[in-house]
């Protein structure tokens, strides 16, 4: 720390943004070197919420460790669980019933919408508009109610298990989801009116935090951040899992690579997710919701990697198995951690207000970064 302060030249203003700061959305600590209000360097200092989930999971069985991943990116916990379940299934070479696949996709997409709703509200709050947050929460609440009904939880779902899902969906599930879809369609226009078309918002977003496609790839950005630079990167398209190949949806791309492009990608993604939900909600096949598995799961010796597309980008699970009851080594490739590495590059030469906007469009979830 002392060396870093010494390394800055005279006249630089060094400011600690976080660990307690309203716009870091958690305990992110950024060590920002500035010249007046212009940012020269951003250095993240992490670990304030590090729980060492990877170490913990080395002593948890293959059924248990999935639950710890809900606590990572808590806004897309379904999708995290999905990734882990996929990895275990890959190891067991387990085929899951079609009903479970459809339920999984439905839950994933609802989670994505909920996560983007929260992101939208939080981004608007970051750039100073406080009202959209409440409007976004109105929609998110409906999704949470749907989740609560089927999974019993509102945040850390723990719904996906190796072989399928833990419980069957509630009889009201379809009805409520349809209600939500109809409701959301009437409200999405309001979102655009309130934020997207606002001239101040557009000026805060356009030409801010630019990252070129080459840099975005080099920095390991995924999800909306990479797609906003015009690089196709949706895992649901590149390596479809659990029947994503059977649904019709587009991968929204923007070429501008700035904050507004990232914003637009996420807004379009919401509509795509909505269309996936609409396609599947009436076509949930009958049958089992979980495949028959042994009570104690044992993965064969080897290495397994599975990728899923969370609301923030590519989530990878890498399991090294020695054939025992617990993973030998487990590694989570979290999208937030990689996206964070581009923050310094994006925010150099920008104003401190832009840093907040960039962080907002990167959609950082701190437990996802710290794990």
């Amino acid at each position, binding site marked *: 720390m002392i060396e870093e302060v010494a390394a800055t030249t005279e006249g630089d203003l060094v400011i600690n943004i976080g660990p307690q700061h309203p716009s870091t959305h958690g305990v992110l600590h950024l060590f920002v070197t500035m010249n007046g209000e212009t940012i020269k360097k951003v250095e*993240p200092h992490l670990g304030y919420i590090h729980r*060492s989930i990877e*170490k913990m999971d080395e002593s948890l069985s293959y059924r248990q460790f999935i639950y710890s991943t809900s606590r990572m990116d808590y806004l897309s916990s379904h999708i995290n669980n999905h990734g882990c379940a996929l990895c275990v299934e890959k190891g067991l070479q387990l085929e899951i019933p079609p009903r479970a696949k459809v339920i999984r996709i439905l839950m994933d997409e609802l989670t994505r919408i909920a996560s983007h709703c929260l992101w939208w509200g939080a981004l608007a709050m970051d750039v100073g508009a406080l009202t959209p947050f409440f409007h976004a929460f109105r929609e998110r609440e409906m999704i949470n109610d749907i989740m609560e009904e089927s999974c019993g939880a509102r945040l850390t779902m723990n719904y996906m298990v190796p072989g399928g899902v833990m419980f069957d969906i509630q009889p009201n599930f379809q009805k409520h989801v349809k209600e939500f879809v109809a409701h959301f369609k009437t409200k999405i226009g309001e979102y655009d009116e309130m934020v997207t078309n606002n001239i101040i918002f557009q000026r805060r977003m356009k030409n801010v935090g630019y990252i070129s496609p080459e840099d975005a790839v080099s920095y390991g950005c995924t999800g909306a951040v990479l797609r906003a630079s015009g690089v196709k990167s949706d895992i649901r398209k590149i390596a479809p899992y659990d029947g994503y190949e059977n649904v019709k949806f587009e991968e929204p791309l923007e070429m501008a690579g700035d904050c507004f492009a990232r914003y637009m990608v996420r807004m379009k993604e919401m509509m795509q997710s909505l269309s996936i939900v609409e396609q599947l909600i009436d076509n949930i096949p009958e049958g089992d919701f979980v495949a028959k598995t042994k009570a104690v799961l044992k993965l064969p010796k080897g290495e397994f990697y599975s990728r899923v597309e969370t609301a923030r980008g*590519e989530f990878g699970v*890498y399991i*090294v198995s020695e054939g025992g009851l617990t993973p030998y080594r487990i590694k989570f490739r979290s999208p937030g951690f*990689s996206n964070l*590495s581009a923050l310094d590059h994006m925010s150099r030469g920008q104003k401190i207000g832009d840093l907040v906007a960039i962080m907002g469009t990167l959609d950082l979830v701190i437990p996802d970064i710290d794990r």
Partner: protein
Amino acid sequence: MIKEELKTKISELLPTATFDETGEWLNVLIDAKEWLPLATQLRNDVSLQFDFLFCVTAVDWKTHLSMVYHLRATQLEHIIVVKAKIADRNNAEIESVCKIWRTAELHELEAYDLMGVKFLHHPGLRRLFLTDDWVGYPLRKDYVDEVNMIKL
């Protein structure tokens, strides 16, 4: 490129590399010292173009450490896994690749912090998650911390 083509191509680039084809993707097993030249070629070779390093993992094998790099070519859509073996566990060193893939900067910090792999020529090697005066590397198998250990 399919596995076989990748295999021939990489064995041209690095004759000492061995391969493991059990997994989903082609695994390239190399020694830590060979990593940086291979990485440069993997990134720059026209027929390979591995421009996306999407996962960096350090694995403690009790006798030695190994770094696992998952690489993807976004244009050509192929994936390989490079496993660099670091024989000296107590003084684990490997060249940093953050000049080739910028994302490695943060991922290598994580590996250094939790697994104790020193990355040579890394621009700012520091404890990322833990405090600067922390002793030991928590993700190693022999790490014992009487106070903070989570036993499940």
